């Protein structure tokens, strides 16, 4: 195993700073293997020591490069391999993990290198516990949030282009998403709404409160998937956004752990729920037991009058 090296596998996404930072924390030399467009590979050239580029994908989905990425990584057998939690990132990591027959760890907050072994701090089981886990006898493969765009040091690593053949598959159509992504991460106040809401029209009730608070609107997963009353970019939780605002309001949200793990970092959490036994009440700082259809307008009014 090559202890000095950390590899990152990049799935056609210039937002890879999370991968680079984590790789730097455990490797003297960071090598990127990029399945994606040339501009993605170039964007990494000043941030890492080597960039291996698998060529222009044309109509191939990034997942078609799984076996090629795995072959390149397996040949080097670095101590650490880091990829993104995005669908494409997980596919590349899956191919690498299969080739090396090692687990993929997610929910990772820190890596520490100790000789050939890497110690991973990660949350498990939807975030109910945290483990320090040593990966022994093989490469440590982790999936992390890709983070933002990469900032380099100006020193350009040359692109090393490898000739590979992707699996057969063709992207025939891309219909761009209509809504722009919301900046929930940067918001000081976030108002989240759940299935306590009875109809799409009633979203206005909650957006009025969000406006009164100068905050962003968010939701639980069922409101964004299943019924699409709010865009998918706005749902919070283990498979959605993780946020740490000063204030989070959970309105008509029961408080299932898959949702609450996404707001654990919030300074103050408020819950409004008609069921006094809802699990959300043991995970908030202030709670109102009541009908959100009455409490929410009252709250909007109370803020408006500055009382």
């Amino acid at each position, binding site marked *: 195993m090559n202890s000095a090296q950390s590899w990152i596998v990049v799935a056609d996404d210039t937002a890879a700073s999370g991968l680079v930072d984590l790789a730097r924390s455990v490797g003297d030399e960071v090598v990127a293997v990029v399945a994606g467009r040339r501009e993605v590979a170039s964007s990494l050239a000043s941030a890492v020591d080597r960039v291996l580029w698998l060529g222009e994908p044309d109509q191939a*989905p990034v*997942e*078609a490069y*799984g*076996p090629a990425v795995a072959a390149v990584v397996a040949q080097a057998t670095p101590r650490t391999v880091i990829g993104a939690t995005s*669908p494409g990132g*997980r*596919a590349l*990591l*899956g*191919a690498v*993990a*299969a080739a*090396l*027959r*090692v*687990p993929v760890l997610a929910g990772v907050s820190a890596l520490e290198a100790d000789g050939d072994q890497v110690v991973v701090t990660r949350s*498990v*089981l*939807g975030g*109910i*516990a*945290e483990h*320090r*886990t040593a*990966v*022994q*006898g*093989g*490469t*440590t493969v982790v*999936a992390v949030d890709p983070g933002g765009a990469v900032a380099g040091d100006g020193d350009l690593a040359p692109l090393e282009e490898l000739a590979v053949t992707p699996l057969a598959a063709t*992207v*025939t159509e*891309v*219909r761009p998403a209509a809504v722009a992504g919301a900046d929930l991460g940067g918001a000081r106040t976030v108002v989240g709404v759940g299935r306590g809401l009875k109809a799409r029209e009633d979203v206005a009730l909650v957006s009025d409160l969000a406006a009164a608070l100068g905050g962003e609107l968010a939701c639980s997963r069922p409101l964004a*998937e*299943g019924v699409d009353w709010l865009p998918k*970019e706005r749902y919070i939780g*283990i*498979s959605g956004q993780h946020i740490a605002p000063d204030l989070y309001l959970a309105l008509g949200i029961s408080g299932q*752990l898959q949702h*609450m793990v996404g707001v654990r970092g*919030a*300074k*103050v*959490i*408020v*819950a409004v729920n008609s069921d006094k036994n809802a699990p959300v009440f043991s*995970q*908030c*700082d*202030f*709670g*109102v037991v009541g009908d959100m259809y*009455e*409490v929410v*307008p009252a*709250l909007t009014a*109370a803020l408006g009058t500055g009382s």
Partner: protein
Amino acid sequence: MKIVVAYKWAPNPQDAVVATTGEVDLSRAKPAVSEYDPVAFELARRLADATGGEVVGLTVGGPSIDTPLSRKAALSRGLDRLVVVADAELEDADGTRIATVLAAAVRAIGDVDLVLAGDSSIDVAQGQVPLTLAGVLGWLGLAAVSAVTAADGGLVVERSLPGGTTVVAVPTPAVLAATADAVVPRVAGMKDILGAAKKPVEVLDLAALDVPAPGATLATLATAKPAGGERTATIFDGSSPAGAAAQLVGALRQAGAL
């Protein structure tokens, strides 16, 4: 088309008891078919009905995944038959080990055109197993699949990705993981539940499968309970909405949250 649906029989960690040391006790959490896996059952059934084919359920894990209840729960959801690998050695196995065993079982089933899976499991929730399975098989693996139809010699797959909806022409064999809302799964009726008892179940012996040894092992050095999960709430009575609102706004101002 011969379709395998990989599904998990798993406990909901919501019902776990977590000690202050971070030790997790799942004994009170009742296992069930993992929340989003019925979406994969439904996609598989519709595709098999449209193409004239067979849907085989496949699950692997510790001995507790194979009970009369777990068999019925899966078989009443539109499967034709079930294949199970249950072995004490797979209790708490990591995702790559699970994927390696799934791959061996897929090969043992033979002539499989498509493996369908759920978005992410209710306990591990990484959305990783299907993609690692694709890696082991050397097949194309795509997650975030919102629709799938058969076309000449392959599949037309729709994906719901951050950049928008993407359509991909995919030759078989392939592994596809569905989004949580790709289709609304049917609710098992009395007839489905009674019919489930008559459907064939094949138990594969782990030792007889061709499963390579793991390339690394995991050792848990320490556990902890994460901060911020439990908070002590000040509760206001919302039966007087205006009163509760005024109290809450006051309390938030005092806490510096407004």
